[in-house]
């Protein structure tokens, strides 16, 4: 089964950070961006994008954990955290090239996107439809069509 994950369209993202609020409410029952598994980055005002775990096929976070607390769910591809094993050392946070892992400020264990069981709340709430649940194949298809359209339709 193809793995789906949350992707953000920087053209559509307005940097409102609603996804962070919704995520923390869903996971911890309160509003707090520091509890969010998805995080928004804004650079020079006009560059906006939210980032969540992309379910890498061979995740560096899992490989980096000295206590083997992280594992990949075979069915969904989601990275699972064994909170009994995790001691919050943060190796995985450092190992991830995208910075999508965080330390839970209260429980002091690592946290990351679990896709809300397949229907992510952030995707449901994003007012600009900047967030979508996609497979790598779908992303590539979209890019290919765009490229061809630009070259052969608009280019004429």
């Amino acid at each position, binding site marked *: 089964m193809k793995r789906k994950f949350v992707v953000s369209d920087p053209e559509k993202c307005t940097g*409102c950070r*609603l996804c962070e609020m919704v995520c923390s409410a869903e996971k911890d029952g309160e509003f*707090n961006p520091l509890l969010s598994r998805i995080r928004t980055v804004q650079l020079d005002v006009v560059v906006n994008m939210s980032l969540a775990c992309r379910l890498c096929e061979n995740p560096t976070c899992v490989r980096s954990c000295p206590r083997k607390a992280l594992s990949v769910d075979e069915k969904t591809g989601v990275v699972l955290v064994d909170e009994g094993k995790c001691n919050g050392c943060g190796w995985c946070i450092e190992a991830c090239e995208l910075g999508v892992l965080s330390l839970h400020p209260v429980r002091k264990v690592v946290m990351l996107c679990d896709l809300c069981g397949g229907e992510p709340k952030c995707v449901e709430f994003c007012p600009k439809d900047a967030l979508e649940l996609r497979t790598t194949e779908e992303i590539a298809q979209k890019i290919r069509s765009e490229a061809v359209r630009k070259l052969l339709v608009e280019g004429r």
Partner: protein
Amino acid sequence: MFGYAGSILHVDLGRKKSRMELLNEDFCRQYIGGNGFAISLLYNCSKPKVDPLSPENPLIFAVGPFAGTIVPTGGKYIVQAKSPLTNFMGEAVSSGFWAHALKQAGYDAVLIEGKAEKPVYLFIDDDVIQFVDAGHLWGTDTIEAMNRIKKEVGDENIGIATIGPAGENLVRFANIANDRHRQAGRTGMGAVMGSKNLKAVVVRGTKGVKVSNLEALMQACKEIYETSQGPLTEGYRFSGTPASLLFHQSVAALPTRNWQDGVFELAEKIGDKYVGERWVVKAIACAGCPIACDHITVVKEEVGKVLGSVEFESLYALGSQCGVGDFPAINRAVDLCDRLGMDTISAGVTIGWAMECYEKGILSDKDTDGLQLTFGNSEAQLEAIKRTAHQKGFGALLAQGVKSASEIVGGGSEHFAMHNKGLEYPGYDLRGLKASVLGFNTSTRGGCHLRSSMYDFDLKGKVDRFTAKEEYGKLVREREDMWTVIDSLMLCKFIRSILGNYKTMARLYALVTGLEMTEESLQKAGERIYNLEKAYNVREGWKSENDYPAPRVMSDPIKSGVAKGAVVTKEEFDLLFKAYCKERGWTPQGVPTKHKLLELELNKAAEELGAPAEEA
């Protein structure tokens, strides 16, 4: 408590001390938050008739019960103090992410008293309050200050409300900036910060906000998020506030060349379509806002690619008001005002006034230090902005704001000083907007479009805009009360067509706080808060003549367009003002009666003011 953080932070800059005051439920119900909390603190914690730029003038930052939640647009903050521009209640509102940070740090309001010995910034790091030396930041512009503080603290996501050189130099319309280019713009709150040697209020909040009924709130907000992508917010989403420019132009309500006309012949070139096609690169949003009205421009032709956030009011004040019809020039002037930390409306109106003085020979080259302040001279405008922020030569005159500057210069220039109570008018030509003219001038903070936004009636054909009628008194009163509730819940007025009704606001308030408020009790709270603002002004020496429009509005008609010939006569304004005072239950002179204040449980104000007992 749900929604509320439950505490007010008291800070004494002189003694470098702070303490917490806990909120109680009654106070929350009576004053709601934001606007209500701020005026309650201002009224009760300041001595009457203090110098606005003295340590005795308390400075208040407050947020609403929705800050830090997902209630759409609920992340605004308000700043109040006695205004150095009007000498009455000062008040400015901004959005961005600062309010969320303050709530997450555990506070609903911060009251700042005294004056720091040397420049400092206040760092509210959850429960830890630090007075950080800001000597190295003194003199930096707002954007540089924000970038440096983020770097120093080592956190990209902190909230920073800072002043620029204009605030440090006590320019009377200096503002407070946050999130790069959002401003608490009006009435000179930045000068009050500067007078306290306070460069910035920096906040890091790591605590969560809990609400009373999370599931129902999520559902309710989801529906609002969906509705807000529909026709009710279309203008703000597609063009942002600049859409107003060509609309005002089409109805001859765009003040031009210091209100000598209501039509600007170069409007097309600074209108949303022309600018949108050439320079708008992206629309961005404040915290949890589904609208995203802020249309960021990048003028690549300019050295350094000037990035701008140019709202309608700036297009008017630095554009049509000064006869400038060149967008890149306006973009540059707005960027300069933003960096120096000055309100674009007050700056533009004051410079426009100086341009008229210059063209009429009331100000000579000698007076302007050689600046050729003719209408349309954008280079001279830019130079005037710089000199104003640094109080340099002629700039020191402009830095007083148009009311004081015109009183100093005289020569008949008071006649065309476009302000009410010292606050420069925004871009609505009031001569042909006869419901707005009442609301813009009874406004407790001076010439302002955001205390009742009566143009919704005038410009949407809901009333006859060219005829003054008694019924406008009631409309203004109702709007002021509701707008006060919006400013106390701290919602954005751009979502007013969806949330701007007591039923929806009461429902969201209950879901967030768990406190049930009826529609009537919310309205009553709005009335209470507005009356307290008025009482503050009366205590500061307000007289009914302070609520009358600028002389030009009452004598020089609009020259062209559909509003040609329109003017507001004294008789017309008398009629409107009388109807308004009666509707408010105040004396015919506009002073809240003891009876009214007691009815609103404003016992201290009732006692202090000794307002006449008789009904209006």
